C-alpha cells in the first residue's frame, strides 16, 4: 500500500465557528492506481487532496506514505517529502507569473538542488512529454488555459514523483483542452505514475481506475471502474 489514511479528521476553527471539513476518513491507495475523487462543492475533496499533498495538516488520524508516518513530521521534513515524492496539478494552474514556462517547470528541481545540466535535460523532456516545448520562453500570461495546464502537468512530472495530485485539472478548460489533459494523465498512469484527481466531471472520473465519492467530509463510495 502506497498511501494509508486512517481516521483522518480536519476541523477549521475560527473565533466562534468550528467547521468539520473531513471526518474519520479511511482510505488506502496502491502504487500505480489512478483515483478520482468526486462529490459536491464543500464536501472536503480539496481538503483531502491538500492533506494527501501535505500542504495541510489533519487535526486527527494518521497518514502513512510508503510506510512512513507523515503526521509527525516537521515543516522542513514535509517540504523535503513533497520535493521528492509529489507532483501537483491545480485547477487554476498556479504558475508563477514572473517566471517563464521553462523556469516554472525547473522550480521543482531547483529546490532539490539538482545540477543545472540535469535540470535542463529533465525540463526539456517534461515539456516534450506534454507538447509545450515551443512555449518554453513564454510567460504564463502569454499562454492559453490548456497550454498553462500542460505546463503545470510538466512541472508536476518533471521530478518523477511517486504520486501526482490533480485538483480539478480540467475545471478551467474547455472540452477539447480538458480531453487533452486527461489523455496526458492517463498516459502518465499507464507509464506507472500513481495519480489522485479531484474532479466534478463524471466522464473524467470514469477514465480513472477507481472512483471515490465524498459527502459532508466522509468517503461514501469507493468503486473500481470497469475499463
Amino acid at each position: 500500500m502506497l498511501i494509508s489514511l486512517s481516521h483522518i479528521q480536519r476541523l477549521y476553527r475560527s473565533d466562534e465557528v468550528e467547521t468539520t471539513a473531513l471526518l474519520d476518513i479511511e482510505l488506502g491507495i496502491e502504487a500505480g492506481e489512478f483515483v478520482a475523487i468526486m462529490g459536491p462543492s464543500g464536501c472536503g475533496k480539496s481538503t483531502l487532496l491538500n492533506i494527501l499533498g501535505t500542504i495541510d495538516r489533519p487535526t486527527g488520524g494518521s497518514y502513512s506514505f510508503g510506510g512512513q508516518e507523515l503526521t509527525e513530521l516537521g515543516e522542513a521534513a514535509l517540504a523535503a517529502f513533497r520535493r521528492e515524492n509529489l507532483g501537483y496539478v491545480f485547477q487554476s494552474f498556479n504558475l508563477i507569473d514572473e517566471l517563464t514556462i521553462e523556469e516554472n517547470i525547473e522550480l521543482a528541481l531547483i529546490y532539490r538542488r539538482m545540477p543545472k545540466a540535469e535540470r535542463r535535460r529533465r525540463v526539456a523532456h517534461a515539456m516534450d512529454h506534454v507538447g509545450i516545448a515551443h512555449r518554453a520562453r513564454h510567460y504564463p500570461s502569454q499562454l492559453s488555459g490548456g497550454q498553462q495546464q500542460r505546463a503545470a502537468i510538466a512541472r508536476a512530472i518533471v521530478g518523477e514523483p511517486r504520486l501526482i495530485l490533480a485538483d480539478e485539472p480540467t475545471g478551467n478548460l474547455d472540452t477539447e483542452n480538458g480531453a487533452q489533459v486527461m489523455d496526458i494523465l492517463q498516459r502518465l498512469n499507464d507509464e506507472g505514475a500513481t495519480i489522485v484527481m479531484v474532479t466534478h466531471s463524471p466522464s473524467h472520473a470514469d477514465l480513472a481506475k477507481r472512483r471515490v465519492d465524498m459527502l459532508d467530509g466522509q468517503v461514501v463510495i469507493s468503486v473500481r471502474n470497469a475499463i
Partner: protein
Amino acid sequence: MFATILKSVLRQMRRHPLYVGLNMFGLALGVGVFLTLTLLVRYEYSFNAALPDVDRLVRVDTHWTMPGTPPGEVAGSTFRALPFLREDFPEIEAGTRFENTELQTEQDGVFSSFVSGLTDPAFFSVFGLKLLHGAPDQALAQPDGLVLSDHAAIRLFGTTEVMGRTVRLNRNGVTVTHTVTGVLARRTTPDLFSGIEMMAPFSSEDMTTRFCFLSWGSDCGRIYLKFRRAGDIDAVSARLRDFVMRHAAGADSDSHALGTHPEKIFGLLLAKLGEARFRDFHVLYAEDGVDRTVINSIGLMGLLALALACANAVNLATARAGLRAREVAIRKTLGASRRTLLVQFMGEAVLVAFIAGVLGLALCELLVPEVASLTGEALVVRYGLVGVVLPLIILVCGFACGIYPSLILSGYRPAAVLAAARMPSGGRGAARLRDALVTGQFGIAITIVICMLVINHQTVFMRTADPGYVRSGLLIGSAMPGHDLAAQRKMLDALRAVPGVITAGFGELAPRPDTKNLGTYSYDRPAGPVSVYLLQDVVSVSYFEVYRPRLLAGRWFDAAHGQDDLPPRDEAPTRKANVVLNAGAVSRFGFAAPDQAIGKIIKSGGMTARIIGVIDDMRFESPRQAIYPEIIFFNTLANQPFNDPIPAVRFQGIVEADMVRRLNRAWAGILPDASSDFSAVDARMSAYYSGDERRGRIFTLGAAAALLIACLGLYGLAAFAAARRVHEIGIRKTLGATGRQIVALLLGDFLRPVALSCVLACPVAWVVMRRWLAGFDERITLTPAHFLIAVAGAFAIAILTVLGQTFHLARAEPARALRAE
C-alpha cells in the same frame, strides 16, 4: 467632487491604515526635513542681506605675497590706509575702522566678558543700523560713549532703557567708565554684527601708539567703506595697486613703510559685504565664512529627503494601484469617464500630500529649535518663506504621487479586470519602476550616510589629532597687558607657586592666537639665497616643559647659554640670536633633514640668527590652514619684557576647574584690574572645529532622516509584496521549498535594489568626500571602512525592516496560501 475625494481618502485611511500611515508619515518627514534645511540654507544665504545699502558696502582686505609662503587674502587691513583712502577716492561716501575684541565689564570685582568691537564715530554713517535708543551720529562721538545690543543691555541692567547709565570697562588692564549712548535694535536677519554686544570708540592712545594704526605692514583691523554708487567699487579696486605704491612705499629704514616696492608683497582688495558669507570661507581670519558647497549640500540633502519621501509615496501608490482595480472597473462600468477618475485620483493624492504637508510643517516647528541648538544659529520658522514653499511642495508632491497611479488606474479595462482571477500589479514595468525608486532611495541614503561618517570622523580626528605638543594638563591664560618686566617676572613666579602646577612659561603665541608677528628671513644656501616669511614667537624659560613639543634636532634653549637670550631691540642689528625653527621652516629653507639646519645662520634685516634646534610643527590654528613656518626666540626676562605674553601652565593631580580657579586667583594677586581667562587648549581651539562639528550634526540628522524615509519605503513595499506574494509562496512551498529557502528568496528580492544602490552610492560619496577633505591641511584618509560600515549598516537596517514581513510570509501554510486568491 471634493466631498467624494475626502470620503475616499478617509475610507482608505480606515481600510489600509498601514499603507496610508506609511505614505503620510514618510511624506510628512520628508516635508519637515526639507522645510527645516531650506530655512537653514535661506538663513546662510541671507547673511548681511538686510544691512542697509549692502550693495555699496565693502571690507578692505589685504593680499600678502611673502617669500616662501603661498600668497593669500587676509580679512583685515592696516588702519593706516583709511584716511588716505578717503582722501584719494571721492567715490567713497563714508569709512570706518572696526576691531573685533572682547571687552570686560567690572562690577564689585567681578569681570564679565562681552563680544565687542572698537570703532570710529563714523560707524553708523557706514552701517545704517537702527538704534532702539540714541542718535546714530552721536552714539560714538564721545570717547567714553558705549553702544549696547539690546541683549547686552538686558544682561547688564535688566532693561533696554539704559541711556546715560555708566559701565566700568577694563581696557588694557585699566578700568575706565563709559556712558551708554545707544542701544542697538534687534535684527532678525543675520549679519556680521549679529554677535556684537558692545561697541566703544577707539581710545586716542590706541590711535597714536598701536602698530595697526601706524604701520602699513599690518592687517590687524577691519576697514569698512560705503561707496556712493555700487558701480564705483570695481573701478576703485582697479586703482588700489597705484594707491599702495603711492602711500605704502618708503625707505627700508622706515619701519612703518613696506620698502620701495610695496606692491610686490602687499595689495589691498575690496570684499563686497553682500558676498562675504561664502567668500570669507577662503579668506584667512574671516570668522563668519561658511563653505558654500557645504551649505548647498545641506540644501541638496533637504531636497533629497523630500525626493525620497515622494519616491516612497509614488512607489506605494503604484504598488497599491492594483488593489483598487476592481473599484475602478466597477466605477467605469457604472459610467465614470477616464477624466473623472483621473481627477479623483489626482485629488486624493493632493489631499494626502496636503495632510502630510501640514504634518511636515508641525515637524518643522519641532525640528527648527533642535537644529538651531545643533548649529548655534538663530534659526526661526519664517512663515513668509514657508507660505510660498509649502503649497508648492504639496502641489508637486501630490502631482508626482498621483500622476502614475491615476494614469494606470484610469486606464484599466473593466472587462479584463473583472474577469481576472488576480489583481493587476502594473506588470513588469511597474515592478521595475518600484525597484528603480528603491535603488535611488537607498543610493541617496547610503551616500549621505557615508558623507556623515566621513565628516564626523574628520571632526573627531581634528579634535584628537596630535597637534605637536601635549594638550592634556595644559592651561592657557589671557595675554598680559602692558610691558612691565617686574610684573611679568612676578606673574611667572606666582603661577609656578600655585599648588599642582608643574611649571609655567610665557609665549607670545598660543593656541588660537589673536595677533601674529611675521618677518622675512633669508639663508645663503650653496645653491643660492632663499627667503622665507616666518611666524615669530618669543618664549620664556620652561616653555618647552609646559608645551612639551618634540625636539627633532639640536637642543632647546638654555638660560645658561648667554647667546640664547634674545638681544634687546636696540642691540639686535649687532648681535647674534640663537633660535629654534619648526620643521616647516627648515624644509622651506631647503634643508633635507632637521639636523642639517643646526648651526646654520639666517638673517633678517641686520640681525643674524643661529639655528640651535628644530622642533616638530605645533598646530595653534585651524586644521584647515597650513601650519606657518616658525622661528622661536628665547627671552629669559633678564633684560627685557615680553610684548603681551600669554602664560601657559602645565599641571597635574588637580581637577581642571579647580586649577583654573587657583590660577585666576594667582593672576588677580599680580594684576587685580585685568581679568584672566585660563582655559584648556580644546576650549580655545573649539572655534576652529565648531563649524565642521555643527555641519556634521546636520549631516547626521539628514542621514538619519534619509535612512528612515528609505526604510519606510522598503517596509511599505515589503508589506505590499508580502500581501501579493502569498499565493506564489504557497506554490513554491507546495513544490518543496523550505521556510529557509523562502526567507532567502524574499530577502534576496528585497535586498537586490539595496545592493545595487550601494554600488552606485560608493563612488559618488568617494568623489564628494575626497573633494571635501582636500580643504583640510590635516585630514583623515578615506578608507574602505567608511564605505563598508555604511553599506553594512544599510543592509542591516534593510534586513531588519523586511525581516518581519519575510518570516510572516515564509511561515504561511501552503494550503491557506493557495486559497488566498
